[in-house]
């Protein structure tokens, strides 16, 4: 392909909407734009002058699929601003609920959005109704897996989307432990299905390697999505509070979402499951590590499609961690910790399904928000995605336009981007002139 304009108006099978335009001149990519073009809602501005107690629930509305991530990051930021240290029970119940989110969210992406790429079809709606068909088996596995993830969040925090029970300082309603044995039984039942999914994604031989830098939370004690230091490929290790200084924001004029690069090296980077398994596979639950030892030899990996495999592994990690918690946790009556409001600044950094999520709350002495900031994973991955696409197009211009478009979408989907978080819409155009 020597000269062309290629357009994908709307990338499908992702959360939210985005697009891509590619200009090809003299047999080379002269311009490529990954465009997040949905309209911003300016929620970080909307919470200014609002009482802190109302803020986490409101900000969970940033995203439908990872609303629990925004809820927990906001609660953590505000608790830190108020110097509230929550109890061990609150921490372990949050961790349990978060496992439910990871199971449901990863399964949605892997099976509903990515599985058709693995099977070479357009949609799960085209999967055979024959119960012996491998695609049919995996899809119906996913219904069971997603359902259990949702069951955990329903029991522990009241809902999978915009959960009502978590609040600043703890829970307004605690889970009923009599429901835990049934959850354990369900988790054990889906375990073989989860492992079948891991094997399916392990066998998928799709490859795109660009030696990205990575960044994630690492907690040296355990695999933990909610607590840890921030680590990156160059060996830097920084506390959550310094996260913002670690990054440099980049205005992308054609995109409604800012991009980010490292402030020191100015290089792009990847956040998400691939980063987490690359850096933290030694911390996986022992049962998880034992049952997928062969699969884990694939990591550390620079293949962006292994982000999908890493998500599948994290489902098993969340299943096994949940079983352990449910078998050991004791739930005692415990009201949320409340303190008179005080002026302060707090940072909450957690691992959302798609990578590091940052919330910062500046609160005044009356307990009102003075300033608020949110940095989401898809914004951080935006420049990395664009550079991956440039590499792919540069190396594959001999392919047909249809194949280029399909593979471009597949690469973008591998990141599991969420435009609702970073904002909302992808359109692809390829111009050959």
């Amino acid at each position, binding site marked *: 392909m020597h000269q062309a304009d290629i357009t994908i108006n709307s990338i499908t*099978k992702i959360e939210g909407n985005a697009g891509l335009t590619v200009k090809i001149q003299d047999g080379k990519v002269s311009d490529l734009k990954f465009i997040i073009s*949905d309209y911003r*809602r*300016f929620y970080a501005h909307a919470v200014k002058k609002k009482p802190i107690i109302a803020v986490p629930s409101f900000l969970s509305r940033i995203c439908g699929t990872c609303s629990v991530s925004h809820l927990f990051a906001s609660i953590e930021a505000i608790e830190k601003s108020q110097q509230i240290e929550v109890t061990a029970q609150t921490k372990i119940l949050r961790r349990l609920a978060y496992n439910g989110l990871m199971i449901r969210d990863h399964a949605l992406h892997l099976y*509903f959005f990515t599985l058709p790429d693995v099977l070479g079809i357009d949609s799960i709606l085209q999967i055979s*109704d024959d119960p012996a068909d491998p695609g049919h088996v995996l*899809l119906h596995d996913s219904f069971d897996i*997603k359902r259990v993830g949702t069951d955990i969040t329903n029991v522990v925090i009241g809902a999978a989307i915009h959960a009502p029970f978590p609040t600043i300082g703890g829970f307004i309603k605690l889970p009923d432990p009599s429901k835990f044995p049934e959850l354990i039984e369900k988790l054990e039942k889906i375990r073989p299905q989860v492992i079948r999914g891991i094997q399916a994604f392990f066998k998928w031989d799709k490859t795109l390697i660009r030696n990205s830098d990575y960044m994630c939370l690492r907690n040296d004690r355990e695999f933990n999505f909610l607590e840890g230091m921030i680590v990156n490929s160059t060996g830097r290790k920084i506390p959550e509070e310094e996260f913002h200084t670690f990054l440099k924001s980049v205005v992308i004029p054609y995109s409604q979402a800012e991009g980010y690069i490292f402030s020191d090296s100015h290089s792009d980077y990847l956040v998400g499951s691939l980063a987490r398994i690359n850096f933290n596979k030694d911390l996986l639950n022992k049962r998880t590590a034992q049952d997928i030892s062969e699969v884990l030899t694939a990591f550390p990996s620079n293949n962006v499609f292994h982000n999908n495999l890493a998500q599948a592994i994290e489902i098993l990690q969340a299943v096994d961690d949940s079983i352990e918690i449910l078998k050991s946790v004791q739930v005692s009556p415990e009201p949320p910790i409340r303190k008179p409001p005080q002026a302060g600044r707090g940072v909450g950094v957690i691992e959302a399904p798609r990578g590091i999520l940052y919330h910062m709350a500046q609160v005044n002495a009356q307990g009102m928000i003075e300033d608020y900031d949110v940095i989401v994973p898809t914004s951080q991955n935006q420049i990395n995605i664009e550079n991956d696409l440039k590499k792919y197009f540069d190396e594959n211009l001999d392919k047909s336009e249809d194949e280029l478009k399909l593979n471009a979408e597949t690469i973008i989907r591998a990141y599991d981007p969420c435009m609702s978080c970073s904002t*909302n819409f992808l359109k692809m155009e390829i111009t050959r002139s």
Partner: protein
Amino acid sequence: MEKKKLVIGWFSFTCCEDSTILLTELLNDHYSGWKQLIEFRHMKALQMKNSIEGLDVAFIEGAISSPSQAEEVKKIRENAKYVVAIGACACTGRPSATRNDFIDAELTEKIKWYMGQFDYSKKVQKLDEVIKVDDTVNGCPMNPIIFMSIVNKYLELFHIS
């Protein structure tokens, strides 16, 4: 002759897409049944090939933030026999319309830049401020029981069983 199915489109505008996520949850239990009764002619969350032509029912979540979104939703209305507003942002505008309360003097430079760079409407609108809406499924996310009753209502209306 192939049995008539209910031809639906699912569309998302400015929102968190929580009702789309809830719909994917409902598919855990209704995938096999709906495949026999419903043609998903437009649903970007599930497929690459989509069309807005000849829809029996368009389900639309999200508020309308711009003139281009308003044009798009009007085209959907022209192509659909019925339109159902899905979730709080489509039904009430909120919380996506929170920026309608912003005071100009308090806007940051960053917000002004985005508002100037892209075609934001002065006010975010709920769906029935832009097009005629036949039914609503309120909730944040949508109430699944009401949604199921609306789906069943249209299956009956089009004599699909």
